[in-house]
């Protein structure tokens, strides 16, 4: 069912069989906003200038769709007051910017090339793709991002955060979960957790700033051969364990040490209150990470 909307048309779609299918033609440069209280939002990309929506909402639920100016808005609604669970499966033009939000909502995005903002309270966020401003926030749910580039801000509170093959400016934070950054190309990375380990495998570029922090966990950072970096390493109760020679240039009080490699151009801060700090070469880290992955029974890609 191909429907073209004029500006500001609000349509409620709720066929009795509990699911809705609709397709909306959109102008180039349009953006998508989805608000779904509970359920899931799954977004794929195609090359057409249309947004295809498949929603499963049960007989008590409904969805509302509108196109106002350049923004397609989809909302879950319900006919009887209490919010119902809706599963959205949406296909969008590749370059469409996305704003996806919900409370008990899992969010999954694959193959888009535009900006992405995804926020949920209780639900995981899994994004592959994206460029520009990428902001992913969950409270109770893990957040993963792969194959993205841009200004990236990724947060969970109670679960882990995982970035792979990501480039650009990166800020990543969680409280109760591990922080894993692999295949990163960046000159500005800030990754921290309180109760979890931190792993970084990526570039250490001249003039870049990098900061890795944990309270309770171990931090493993890869330093490529030939990197020029001033490393400030601090741990109150843990060990510092480099797998290559690390010339100490300064100590600052108990617990903090500065090492200089090459010209010392990049600045890196690696700090864990109670955990160990491991400094490795990229090849060692990739091996270490692959073993860990096998144990986790976790499927990548």
């Amino acid at each position, binding site marked *: 069912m191909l429907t073209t909307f004029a500006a500001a048309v609000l349509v409620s779609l709720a066929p009795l069989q509990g699911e809705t299918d609709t397709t909306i033609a959109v102008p180039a440069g349009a953006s998508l906003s989805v608000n779904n209280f509970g359920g899931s939002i799954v977004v794929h990309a195609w090359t057409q200038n249309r947004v295809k929506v498949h929603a499963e909402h049960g007989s008590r639920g409904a969805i509302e769709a509108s196109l106002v100016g350049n923004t397609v808005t989809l909302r879950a609604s319900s006919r009887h007051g209490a919010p119902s669970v809706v599963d959205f499966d949406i296909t969008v033009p590749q370059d469409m910017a996305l704003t996806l939000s919900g409370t008990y909502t899992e969010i999954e995005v694959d193959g888009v090339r535009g900006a992405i903002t995804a926020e949920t309270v*209780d639900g995981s966020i899994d994004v592959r793709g994206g460029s520009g401003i990428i902001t992913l926030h969950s409270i*109770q749910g893990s957040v993963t991002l792969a194959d993205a580039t841009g200004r990236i801000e990724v947060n969970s509170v109670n679960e882990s955060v995982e970035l792979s093959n990501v480039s650009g400016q990166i800020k990543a934070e969680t409280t109760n979960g591990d922080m894993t950054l692999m295949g990163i190309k960046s000159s500005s990375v800030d990754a921290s957790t309180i109760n979890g380990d931190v792993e970084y495998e990526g570039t250490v570029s001249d003039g870049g700033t990098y900061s890795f922090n944990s309270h309770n966990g171990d931090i493993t950072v890869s330093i490529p051969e030939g990197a020029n970096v001033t490393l400030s390493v601090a741990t109150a109760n843990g060990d510092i364990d480099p797998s290559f020679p690390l010339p100490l240039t300064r100590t600052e009080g108990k617990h903090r040490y500065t090492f200089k490699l090459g010209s010392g151009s990049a600045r890196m801060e690696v700090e864990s209150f109670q955990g160990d700090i491991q400094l490795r070469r990229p090849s060692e880290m990739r091996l270490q990470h692959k073993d860990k992955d096998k144990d986790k*029974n976790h*499927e990548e890609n």
Partner: protein
Amino acid sequence: MSDQVVEDTLPADSIAADAALAASGDASAFERLYRTHSARIHSLVRRMLDADEADDLTQDVFVRAWQKLGTFRGESAFGTWLHRLAVNVVLARRKTLGVERGRFQTGDDPLEGVSGRRETPEMSMDFEEALAKLPDGARQVFVLHDVEGYRHEEIARMLGVVPGTSKSQLHHARMALRRHLDR
């Protein structure tokens, strides 16, 4: 020697009491619930997916149950609620594994390649082993319908197929398993 307690023998209100305690953050109450229900959940997960994943996923189920206890209103028995949550976790895991919808085989013998002729009783695979060897679709329908008691309409919705497929997969599973009834 297991410290499992069969749910039937515990008074229903002690389970309900533990559920209420656990919902307000009492971890030892939740541990008691775990001890009572872990065998059932683990068996469900193992039969729906496989033995390798069962341990991890069982933990996932209980962690999720802890998180969602706030939404358990006590209208059904805790065990029923937990069970439904486990099924959801298993189904979500299916999706993550990229199981395509409709990967259901329609061959005559889903256990082809596995000896099971009625006339040769020396094959010794028992019922549960044979169950594990069924193709995913047939096995999951069988577990949900015959072991767990869901109806075809519900199963169809959960697995993303039409009820007719659920019925035919159930039939395939039963036909394949009949050669492996323990003697």
